[in-house]
């Protein structure tokens, strides 16, 4: 099932209350906030109202905020080949 991936890239400060309300309804409270929404005409109409402020793409997977945060993390720089801790637990 496809989703709209919406990121607020321009602030709504100073725009009309209708547009600010649409941003609030979409869950876009701050810049660079990303939200996922179903693909349907109601959401499409809301996105058309604030199309000047957002970055938009479609995805198949809906990610939580934690998952998006983890995707941004750099690799740790090491690989655990064998854990002594796990071995020790196995013996005792």
């Amino acid at each position: 099932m496809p989703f709209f991936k919406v990121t607020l890239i321009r602030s709504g400060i100073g725009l009309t209350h209708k547009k600010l309300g649409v941003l609030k309804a979409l869950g876009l409270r701050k810049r660079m906030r990303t939200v996922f929404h179903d693909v349907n005409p109601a959401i499409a109409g809301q996105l058309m109202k604030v199309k000047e402020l957002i970055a938009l793409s479609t995805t198949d997977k809906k990610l939580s905020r934690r998952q998006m945060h983890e995707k941004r993390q750099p690799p740790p720089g090491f690989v655990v080949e064998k854990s002594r801790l796990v071995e020790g637990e196995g013996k005792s």
Partner: protein
Amino acid sequence: MFGAFRPTSALFGGLLWKRPWRISRPQKYRQRQRLQRIDRIVDTIESALAKRGMTSQAVEVWKAEMPTESEMPPRDKYTIFDKKHKGYRKGIHKLPKWTRVSQRINPIGF
């Protein structure tokens, strides 16, 4: 140097327009990028709905009424209609919040 009577260009020259009457080349470039980005967003919404066999009135009205960036003449991209202005046109950067609002078409007859 400081205070109410400091020599500034506004005090020396009287009237000082801080917004130039025309927009610069990089501003025009960024304006085109913004227009193209909005076109892409509308296309994304339309194709996503079409894949599910849906349509949206907002998208259809926009597609019927608004030209895309490539269809717009430079006159419409960089200037807007103003009834008080000489030649009825002024730079689009005079439009409040011009980088965050859509302004593509002219009043009928202009």
